[in-house]
């Protein structure tokens, strides 16, 4: 699971640039801050490497295990 | 275990008495840099602090010294530095920081011949205005002026007490004369010495929810290492430690509350010694020039001439009211300073023309006035 906090995102693009699996892409939308946030385009390819989390300077992206619902 | 307080009667050098006063006041951290005529204070602290469980640090320069003192104070430790004019010049930025962050600490200036390198071992009362206005910006400061080794001991304790109570740096404005002279110093029993400790917040208090600064009634100090999650900054801030550098209202509040905190307690800080009776002429002095006044009065009394004495024990905040009242009672005020006139301007302003104010320096700067010259001047003024 990948969640993006658009209130904190500053649209720097580091998460997109350093994702080894091209799971993210900069969107065309604009947030309240006036920047383009990333969007998840291939969630199933995410390998939970944490690169996006580690490189986001604003703690705006969180990656975690999918919650399994029985 | 060595005694913390060396109670008893001593024949002691002023600088050493100052160091002993600090230790008696509970000072347990000293950071400094060697400089004539203050080095003896550092040397005494280097020897005594480890004996009483404290720490001495010789820093790479005076800027580092005052920085280390402020850092130590923020762990709850009473801290002091001692230097002379050139060192104060270097320290001024961080003294402003101590004022802005409301950090208790004591700064001793054993004044010497200046400007610049000047004459390290001669006294001059040249840094009096520097203590008041040397750092940039709008602030109040507290300064005390000892006139004897005994007062080097007593007033250093008072300086610590004022700094703890008001969470502010306090200056001791000594000079090479009182720093290096030796005289009787009576050190009381430890239990007879009254000490003041800074207020702390109660444990568990949330930093965002109580005033930790900018309170006219002195906010509790959220020292480090207690889980207070303190945010201390020299940037303009609000009472909750939040840096606020975009709006003028924040600057206005920051300046006024820091200044009002000292002004509100003027009555407790100000200390003057007044002996006027019905003299029409009064000699105003502070620090070592008081010793001249004492001797001049003694000689005048032998001739049946009564001249008053008004001594400033505390220099800052300036005792405006007290001087105004004095000016109403007398006709002539002679101000004795070992400089070209620093406090005299404030005396004149406070006197508001109620009495004539005359400045009297020594014939040669860097020495004390010749008492006979003062006697002659008084007689001349009386007419």
């Amino acid at each position, binding site marked *: 699971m990948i969640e993006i906090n658009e209130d904190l995102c*500053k649209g720097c693009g580091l998460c997109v640039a350093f994702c080894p699996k091209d799971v993210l892409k900069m969107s065309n939308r604009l947030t309240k801050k006036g920047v383009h946030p990333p969007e998840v385009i291939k969630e199933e390819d995410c390998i939970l490497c944490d690169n996006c989390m580690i490189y986001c*300077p*604003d703690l705006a992206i969180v990656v975690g295990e999918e919650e399994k619902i029985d | 275990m060595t005694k913390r307080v060396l109670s008893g009667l001593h024949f002691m050098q002023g600088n050493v008495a100052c160091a002993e006063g600090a230790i008696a006041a509970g000072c347990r951290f000293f950071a400094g840099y060697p400089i004539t005529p203050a080095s003896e204070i550092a040397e005494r602290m280097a020897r005594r602090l480890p004996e009483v469980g404290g720490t001495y640090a010789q820093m790479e320069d005076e800027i*580092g010294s005052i920085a280390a003192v402020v850092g130590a104070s923020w762990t709850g430790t009473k801290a002091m530095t001692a230097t002379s004019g050139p060192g104060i010049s270097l320290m001024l930025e961080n003294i402003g920081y101590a004022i802005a962050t409301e950090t208790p600490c004591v700064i001793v200036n054993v004044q010497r011949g200046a400007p610049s390198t000047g004459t390290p071992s001669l006294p001059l009362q040249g840094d009096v205005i520097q203590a008041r206005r040397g750092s940039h910006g709008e602030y109040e400061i507290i300064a005390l002026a000892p006139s004897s080794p005994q007062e080097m001991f007593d007033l250093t304790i008072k300086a610590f007490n004022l700094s703890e109570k008001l969470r502010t740096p306090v200056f001791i404005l000594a000079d090479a004369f009182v720093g290096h002279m030796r005289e009787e110093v009576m050190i009381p029993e430890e239990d007879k010495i009254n000490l003041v400790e800074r207020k702390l917040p109660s444990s568990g208090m949330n930093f965002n929810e109580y005033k930790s600064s900018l309170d006219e009634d002195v906010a509790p100090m959220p020292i480090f*290492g207690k889980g207070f999650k303190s*945010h201390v900054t020299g940037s303009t801030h609000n009472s909750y430690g939040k840096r606020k550098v975009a709006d003028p209202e924040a600057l206005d509040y920051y300046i006024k509350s820091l200044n009002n905190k000292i002004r509100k307690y003027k009555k407790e800080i100000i200390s003057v010694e007044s002996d006027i009776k019905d003299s029409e002429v009064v000699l105003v002095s502070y620090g070592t020039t008081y010793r001249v006044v004492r001797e001049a009065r003694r000689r005048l009394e032998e001739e049946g001439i009564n001249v008053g004495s008004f001594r400033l024990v505390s220099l800052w905040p300036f005792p405006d009211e007290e001087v105004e009242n004095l000016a109403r009672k007398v006709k002539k005020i002679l101000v004795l300073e070992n400089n070209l006139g620093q406090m005299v301007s404030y005396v004149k302003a406070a006197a508001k023309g109620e009495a004539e104010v005359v400045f009297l320096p020594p014939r040669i700067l860097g020495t004390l006035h010749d008492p006979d010259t003062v006697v002659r001047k008084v007689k001349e003024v009386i007419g």
Partner: protein
Amino acid sequence: MKMVHPLIKYVRPGYLSTTTCSGCGNGIVAQSVLRAIDELKMNIDDFVFVSGIGCAAWIPSPFFNADVLHTTHGRPIAFATGVKLSSPELKVMVISGDGDLVAIGGNHFIHAARRNIDLTVICVNNGIYGMTGGQVAPTTPFGLKTTTTPYGNAERPFDLCKLGEAAGAVYVARWTTYHARQLTKSVKKAIQKKGFCFIEVVSQCPVQFGRRTGAGDAVAMMQGYKNNSVNIKKIGKLKEEELEGKIVVGEFVDREGPELCEEIAKMRERIG
């Protein structure tokens, strides 16, 4: 389901949204430090963070929910010395910029290293004075045009790690923001090692450095770090000319020495 970033618990409530520029390396350094403390399972209340003036100094101030001392320009190491000497049981960490720590603060830096006082000093090196608008710094590459070197920088830059080593630091490492994981590892080591531990982090300033000098945006600068860095363990194989323009990263020094607080404690015992 709302996931919470694992490091939020270390951020001062109400201060999560920071003032840093988009893509600034500061946030990456902040995360790396907090992650180190988290992985060591240490209590952040046992730390005191000290910083000076400049953008990097805003990493702990006010962002970290801990005791933070934001001091005057160049002086955090001197303030930190006072904190540590008077309360040696506290872990004291200095986080500040290159201009702050080695230009105006140079004297305090070399003496603290010489004394080997137990501090962790993280120098965020962006090669410029960012906060004031992009003036040349003692770490700016030779020849670079900045706002105060409009015709090109005529001065050579410091090698901060060599400086720290020469002054006596017992641990010296350099990473870039690209090496965030290795940075966390070094911070953990430095926190646990007694003595003066110095970590330089080459970090992107996309606005005052990147945009002005043509180095590019945050992505371009970090890709530059990735492509131009070489680990110290591997440079034996490279010739002098091949190192031109390269950022050498890794651990340069890891040695022992008498630590100041310990020496003072021993002295106290000696005098009884």
